[in-house]
């Protein structure tokens, strides 16, 4: 029995990325799953852990176009979306596309951009089109934004508002590698194996077919209900002021479909919902002031919710 196209695509991309990103197979898995779910990815961690490398590897592994936008305070919305310029020779206005016009967009240090610029990017993420001077310009399909941000340096940064965080399908944290993995990282660097050395391993038609296959994978009504109950339970948690929105429920299901594909399945299980709950939901929760004072973390809240919501078939 042959593996599904989406599974083959995942394996090809993951193997390619892991030639450079060593010792983090789960992070790579979730990142590729986000790509297969056609959702945007926010990678958040301290400097030096490979956020940008991961994003660049993802972009390089896909045979489409990719752009990198380095967010700085002087970056203008037009730099992201594009501008209309008057062409004297033709005596017409011409649209000059910005950095978002690529299949994979690496928005590096997105929290260093001004809120206005951030809004321009996040609008594209949601609408998948850019409107300049009343003219809509479609971005390529598939369209994946991989944004990175540093959570510890607050000076000169603009924290992404919760409404805009909601646009990201997942938020991942790379985390420090263990000793063996770090040795591999150092050896790869010594061998001068970097993102730029990676070749595309999947073309756009194949990726689009894989994405379509993932979106069509089977999901039982009981699983949908379970996902909704998990999202709804975050709204009733005592430590949460604003819980996950219905968009969060949708994101749970879509991410679970993609994660199931990474295991060779075209159907979703409750374990898939549980596995994606933390990266999908934690950045969508706004904790109460008391909970924040007590240094509660959204990931803890999600874990508690998963521990209380009855799983399908497990009642009794």
């Amino acid at each position, binding site marked *: 029995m042959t593996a599904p196209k989406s599974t083959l695509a995942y394996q090809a991309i993951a193997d390619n990325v892991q030639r450079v990103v060593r010792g983090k197979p789960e992070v790579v898995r979730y990142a590729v799953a986000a790509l297969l779910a056609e959702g945007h990815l926010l990678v958040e961690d301290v400097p030096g852990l490979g956020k940008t490398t991961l994003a660049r590897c993802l972009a390089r592994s896909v045979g489409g176009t990719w752009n990198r936008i380095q967010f700085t305070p002087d970056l203008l919305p037009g730099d992201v979306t594009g501008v209309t310029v008057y062409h004297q020779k033709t005596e017409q206005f011409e649209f000059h596309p910005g950095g978002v016009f690529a299949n994979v967009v690496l928005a590096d240090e997105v929290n260093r951009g001004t809120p206005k610029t951030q809004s321009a990017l996040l609008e594209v993420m949601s609408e998948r089109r850019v409107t300049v001077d009343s003219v809509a310009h479609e971005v390529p399909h598939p369209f994946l934004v991989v944004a990175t941000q540093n959570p510890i340096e607050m000076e000169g940064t603009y924290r992404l508002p919760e409404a805009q965080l909601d646009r990201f399908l997942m938020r991942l944290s790379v985390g420090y590698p263990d000793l063996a993995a770090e040795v591999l990282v150092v050896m790869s660097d010594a061998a001068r194996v970097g993102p730029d050395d990676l070749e595309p391993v999947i073309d756009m038609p194949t990726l689009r077919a894989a994405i379509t296959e993932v979106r069509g994978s089977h999901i039982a009504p009981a699983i949908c209900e379970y996902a909704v109950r998990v999202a709804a339970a975050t709204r009733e948690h005592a430590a949460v002021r604003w819980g996950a929105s219905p968009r969060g429920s949708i994101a749970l299901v879509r991410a679970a479909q993609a994660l199931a594909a990474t295991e060779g399945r075209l*159907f979703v*299980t*409750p374990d898939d919902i549980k596995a994606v709950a933390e990266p999908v939901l934690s950045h969508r929760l706004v904790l109460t002031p008391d909970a924040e004072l007590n240094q509660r973390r959204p990931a803890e809240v999600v874990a508690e919710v998963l521990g209380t919501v009855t*799983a399908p078939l*497990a009642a009794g």
Partner: protein
Amino acid sequence: MSMPTVARGSGLVAVYLAASVAGLLFGPVFGVGALLLPVGATVLPALAVTLWLRSREAWRAMAAVFAGLAGLLVALRADPSAVFAGVTDSWRLALQTTWPARPEPEVVVFVPLLVLAAAVFGVELLLRLRAPLVSLLPALGVVVLSQAYAAAGGVSAILAAVAFAACGAVIVARGIPWAAVALGVVGAVALGVVSSGPALSLRTDEFAPLATPRVASPLDELPSRLADPSTPVFEYTSSAPVDRWPIVVLDEFDGVNWTPGGGLRRMGTGLPPAVESPTSRSAEVRMLGSLDGPWLPSQTWPATVEGVDALVDPARGTLLSEAGASSYTLTWWEPQVDPVSLMGKAIDPSVPGAKAGVGTAPASVHDLAEKAVGRMRSSFRTALLLEKYMRDNYELVTTGDLPVGHGWPQLERFLTVEKRGTREQFAAAYVAMARLLGIPARLVVGFAGPDSGSVVRNRDALAWPEVAVEGVGWVALDPTGSARVSSASNGLPRVLEDTRSDLPSPDEMVPPELPPAAPDVAPARRVPWALALWLLVVPVGWLLALPLLVGVRSWRRRRSGTVADAWAEVRDRLRRHGVAVTSAMTVRDAATAARPVVDPPTADALSGLAMAVDATMWSGAPVDARAQAWSAVRAVRSGLARRPWKARLRAAFRY
């Protein structure tokens, strides 16, 4: 933390039913019929509210309590203060009352309140905990309390146990496991058979308190009454003359004072007959004002008292009303005695007060008593011989300078020197000598029936001895030989008069056969068998029923054979082995949680089960993985069987 789940309605009904059954076990106290209304009126509204609001965790219990209380107030027609008083006092009032107690709100209210509390608490346990049978513990607590009041036995115990087993079955299973019900029946029958022994009851030492604990002894009042003979005391209306009206029974004698023994209880709906072949009589008594003290004219075996809120000593028949009474209707039991057989009766040493002491008796009185009966063994004939001896050798003094006192110095002087005395000295001396001979006797103070008419006056005041006769009860004697027996009387006094005439002389008498030895039962040494059995049977039955229930459940799942049942079977087996498998866990979560408990092959089997469940339940494809799933179940069962024997033993007694 467990997530609240909404139980099936049948489980909630079963919890309420179990609490109601526990409440109805107070039947010996009030009568089952009297409990149906207050318990039903409390339980039904509360149950309806619980079923309605079962998903509202915050309001459910409070709303049910309010609904139950409202139903209770309507049913009892009581105000909230009566309910509040019932919370603090009714349980004690029920203990201080003769049973069946009158179902008055201030007495009965604690039963429906207990039932309501047990039901509401049980429902909360059912809906909040994972062990459903824990929800029966509050009702079981009510059962234990009811058994501390009056131990159930026979049919009532069987019915209660069967009802409890059925409730537990409904709560635990989706159907009724008849094996569990059968076990309940067997346990109940065994309980009914073995629980016939004496039972400990909380009421044993609980009596109604007296506001005036010290009152003048009617025995001391006799001389003053006889000094004012024409003053009316009370009058009665009855279909036939009444020969004696006892006021108080004085069965405690320390050598100086005669005092009443026993304890008083509030009069309930009535007292059962304590004699063989009883007949019922009644009289309306109207007090005329000169009876001092709280005692009321009574009979030896009162049945009911209407018209006055009276206290009664059920063992002695004494009636008492601290508030006084102007009139009341007394119904009492009288034994039907065959005059031929009365002579051959034995004494009854088992009656209350039969073993009361006599203090330090003078040796001369002891010798005199033995001489009076010709050293015959104790029997009713001996009692009659002693009566005859006193009639023949002593003189009753009713006028002039009357001797006083009824302690040993006065009685010894009366018996050995003066040989003339008052009625109370005759009676006291008779009782003391009878006790020295081993005959159960007691001193009674009261009034004789009037010569004519129905008005009892001071001149009718009388003290007389009574002896306990087997199968008859207390029989009044007259050592003075002066008491009148109404010609219209056809009761015990008339039969006794006929018996006296047939009494042979001491030389001609043949000692009767020895009575069977009475069991030496001392209240302080009674073993609470019924309570101990309940405490033993319940846990033992629990331990025996658990493996049975587990086996039945497992068999039903195997018969069903679905993948979901395979997962449920594995889940419960892991839980019994201490793995905290919550309802939020999937098969893979359970496998992870079980890692510290199971070996690698078992962990692999759990992974296989997870794949079978995923393929069958979530793939959307027609996959038949039942064989794979149940193969995993067998592997898990084998893996758990390889655990240490202590772990397996603990698992055997978990559900």
